[in-house]
């Protein structure tokens, strides 16, 4: 799982049986009392600039906790907090791999010419199941989980992390699988990496480019329910301009698929406008763009203030 905190927004991505939405009450408590931000609407609900909540349908929904067992319960909970929320089901409703999305209306009174810098905002997400066993095995480490209690003298939360086995193995997994090379960069592009290898298996990583963009990967390689996700807000066309290295999201997509070789996957791409160059290129993906994969569905959603492109692919 990962959390990204910017001055004005957060992105929280959690797997397993986490209770993601149960942070909302305390989060807004802190926002109101520590930051003194007033985001209340007339009806006492919150009206921030924009809210997104999404998830692919679960493999084991009944093992989830509380409201997270059921999409409608999650939406009811969100609607208690936020104004103008809308719920969508993306993909085929007779398939067990559809995708759910809740999105609030954009608070347009906050927009101005001076703060229009979010116009290039874009998010690419690739959700993969049925990973190739040889690929999945690269995310199994079986390191020993220690039964230790750290004393205060052990400096549990120090900066000295060179001997931290979970992080070291995570680093090695990133190098071995070339997940640090999903985007082509050069020495002028700043690069920060944080990865962790879970025991007995599993992997999470956060990678920051140019100090302000991230991509994050989460892998659960267990046979029978193997899964990997890739999410990125890196504007690849901007990166291509800055580095002079020609690349687009189809190249990124191909590199991610090479690491996992999944049986099934869905790709979602959010952009403010259909004229976004990445949106245009992804929308026109041809049959030959993704070798060994068959396009099952392509759906475009015209949402309030955002365009969403959804693809479902299956390995041939």
């Amino acid at each position, binding site marked *: 799982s990962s959390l*990204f905190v*910017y001055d004005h927004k*957060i992105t929280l991505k959690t797997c397993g049986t986490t209770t993601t939405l149960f942070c909302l009450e305390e989060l807004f408590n802190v926002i109101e009392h520590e930051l003194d931000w007033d985001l209340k609407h007339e009806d006492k609900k919150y009206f921030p600039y924009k809210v997104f909540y999404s998830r692919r349908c679960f493999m084991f929904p009944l093992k989830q906790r509380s409201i997270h067992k059921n999409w409608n319960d999650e939406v009811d909970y969100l609607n208690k907090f936020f104004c103008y929320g809308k719920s969508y089901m993306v993909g085929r409703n007779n398939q067990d791999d559809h995708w759910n999305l809740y999105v609030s209306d954009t608070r347009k009174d906050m927009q101005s010419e001076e703060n229009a810098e979010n116009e290039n905002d874009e998010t690419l997400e690739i959700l993969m199941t049925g990973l190739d066993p040889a690929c999945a095995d690269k995310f199994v480490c079986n390191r020993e989980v220690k039964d230790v209690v750290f004393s205060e003298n052990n400096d549990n939360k120090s900066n000295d*992390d060179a001997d*931290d086995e979970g992080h070291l193995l995570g680093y090695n997994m990133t*190098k071995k699988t070339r997940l640090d090379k999903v985007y082509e960069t050069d020495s002028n592009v700043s690069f920060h990496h944080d990865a962790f290898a879970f025991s007995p298996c599993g992997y999470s990583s956060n990678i920051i480019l140019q100090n302000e963009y991230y991509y994050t990967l989460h892998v659960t390689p267990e046979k029978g*329910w193997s899964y990997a996700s890739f999410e990125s807000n890196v504007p690849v066309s901007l990166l291509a301009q800055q580095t002079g290295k020609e690349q687009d999201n189809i190249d990124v997509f191909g590199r991610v698929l090479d690491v996992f070789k999944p049986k099934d996957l869905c790709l979602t791409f959010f952009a403010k406008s259909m004229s976004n160059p990445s949106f245009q290129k992804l929308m026109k993906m041809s049959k030959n763009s993704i070798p060994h994969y068959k396009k099952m569905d392509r759906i475009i959603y015209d949402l309030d203030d955002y365009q969403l492109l959804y693809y479902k692919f299956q390995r041939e």
Partner: protein
Amino acid sequence: TVTIKELTNHSYIDHELSATLDSTEAFEGPEKLLEIWFYPNKTAIPVPKAKTLRSIAVEKWVHILKLVKCDVLSIKSTDTMDAFLLSE
């Protein structure tokens, strides 16, 4: 490209959690993704109230994330953002 120095420049790391965390029961892959834009960007935050989300102390985030059933393994920070790597 990642280099070995990335293992030594965390702004926060929980060694005890890292050493003792067992993910045997983390059976569900698909994630829940929550994104909240409180303001369209930093410059839209009301000026007299100069505090931002990044002013919130790490300890407070740890508390908020406990409600989610997540613990903080480590954090990387830049001039613009903080990236938390979490348990589960």
